[in-house]
């Protein structure tokens, strides 16, 4: 039986003393106990660490395996208001879906009033609407049924930042694609057909990767394993790339850019590519750090290039 004292990481004030804590108690359980004495700090916004400037301990860490004496001293930092990843994803994806449709149906006050509730005369505009909507419906369904999140929550301010990004770009793109003065692609049907093939190929690819990553992790667990190619040919790209979900995502948006020939779409693709490259490089680095036998042929996001 041990004791646990929790100090504020900045002021070193004693915030909480828990006596008679089981040695096999997890950090998660200790967080729940701390929450009882300080109800404003729910477990998701607690960062518990051994050292005031050290890394956060994981919820699964067990007390007796930590380098502490009979009375364990932990330091607490408030992570600020938290919001669940699922909530953020659903909000940031539902926005573009609905916003694009508002422009597609030419809801009043967007374009000149003579165009209210009219439809575009270009069939590529209808195709683009279907592709864009399909993409975000797919993302919403994946959030609900496919993804297994490592973290439960993220800081609250992220939802404002993320929604501004997704919703803003969706409105900017949709405005021009559904505009009465929209110019269809220069190379006409050939360009649109190629773009559609690329788009669909990458959508299937992206979905295959999400399924493969989901199957790596048993339900409710947070284990991390090296992903490998499966029987699905769309996953064979794992041989060359650490984060093929981002590779396929880039491909989808390149397809959509080609299909709509719209500069704002190209800008969105570029910004997304930069962000995904940053994420892919981080993930690649943590794979290399965690697994000694990580395949050396793989690049973070673009085979052999990046």
């Amino acid at each position, binding site marked *: 039986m041990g004791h646990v004292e929790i100090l504020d990481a900045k002021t070193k004030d004693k915030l909480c003393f828990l006596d008679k804590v089981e040695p096999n108690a997890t950090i998660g359980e200790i967080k729940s106990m701390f929450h009882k004495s300080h109800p404003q700090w729910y477990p998701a916004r607690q960062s518990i660490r051994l050292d005031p400037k050290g890394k956060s301990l994981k919820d699964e860490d067990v007390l007796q395996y930590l380098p502490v004496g009979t009375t364990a001293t932990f330091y607490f930092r408030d992570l600020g208001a938290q919001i669940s990843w699922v909530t953020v994803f659903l909000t940031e994806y539902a926005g573009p879906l609905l916003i694009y449709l508002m422009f597609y149906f030419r809801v009043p006050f967007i374009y000149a009033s003579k165009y209210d509730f009219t439809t575009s005369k270009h069939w590529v505009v209808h195709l683009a609407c279907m592709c864009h909507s399909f993409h975000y419906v797919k993302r919403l369904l994946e959030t609900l049924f496919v993804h297994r999140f490592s973290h439960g929550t993220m800081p609250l301010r992220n939802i404002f930042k993320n929604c501004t990004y997704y919703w803003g770009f969706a409105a900017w793109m949709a405005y*021009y*694609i559904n505009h009465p*003065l929209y*110019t269809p692609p220069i190379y006409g049907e050939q360009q649109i057909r190629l773009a559609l093939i690329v788009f669909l190929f990458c959508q299937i690819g992206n979905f295959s990767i999400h399924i493969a990553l989901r199957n790596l992790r048993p339900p409710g667990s947070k284990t991390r394993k090296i992903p490998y190619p499966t029987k699905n040919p769309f996953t064979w790209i794992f041989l060359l790339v650490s984060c093929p979900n981002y590779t396929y995502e880039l491909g989808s948006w390149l397809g959509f850019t080609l299909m709509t*020939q*719209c*500069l704002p779409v190209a800008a969105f693709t570029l910004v997304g590519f930069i962000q995904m490259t940053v994420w892919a490089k981080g993930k690649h680095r943590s794979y*290399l750090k965690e697994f000694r036998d990580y395949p*050396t042929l793989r690049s973070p996001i673009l085979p052999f290039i990046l």
Partner: protein
Amino acid sequence: MTNPRRQLCWRSVFVTFAVCTGTMASGEEDRTVEEKETNNKKRTKGAIATAWLTFYNIAMTAGWLVLAVVMVRYYLQKGTHKGLYKNIARTLKFSQTFALLEVGHCAIGIVRTSVIVTGVQVCSRIFMVWFITNSIRQIQNEESVILFVVVWTITEITRYSFYTFNLLNHLPYFIKWARYNMFIVMYPLGVIGELLTIHAALPYVRRSGMYSLRLPNKYNVSFDYYYFLIIVMLSYIPLFPQLYFHMLRQRRRVLHGEIVVEKDE
């Protein structure tokens, strides 16, 4: 991707060999020589950086001084500010554009300031010079232009001479005083000058449709410089207080620190 473990292996092989052959001593010497070489390289890099920065800051101080002299002479001779802009246009454009190098200084680390902060500051200046006063000829004789150019000149001469003297380790107190006090008045005046200038430019921008792209076009995008300028003016509202209070805080830190030292004496 180099494997750090592989590198370690070679090192241990070398050390083992050195120990076995009794050459451990010279092995160790080699290592300290290596360290000395790296330190020397760092020192020369530091010296080159300091030399370049000193030259740069002297050059910029000179550039803005020239601008000040030209402006004063013109006003003394002509008694009016009309036609002044044409005289100073080239020097102004040259001096302000050269400041882009400062972003580079931050990026390679020889100046310890954020790249983004410097980038934003330099870009806003470049924007005023090239995309407002240079391209919209009708507003070049406005009083507001003279206002912000005078403010910029005073501010830049103070700033660059401050950096120069700092690098030479001989900072006269009045330069330090000027740098951390004049902005209190200069900064708001400069903002007023800039905003009035942009505002004066608006009707000419609207009429000429400059820098704007209309639909339909094959890129399926449009850009209206007129509304863009209005957004730029509105952005001063959140940005100006942030920068102003940041500078006030810096001032308090620098001058407050000084008071503490005097007490110890």
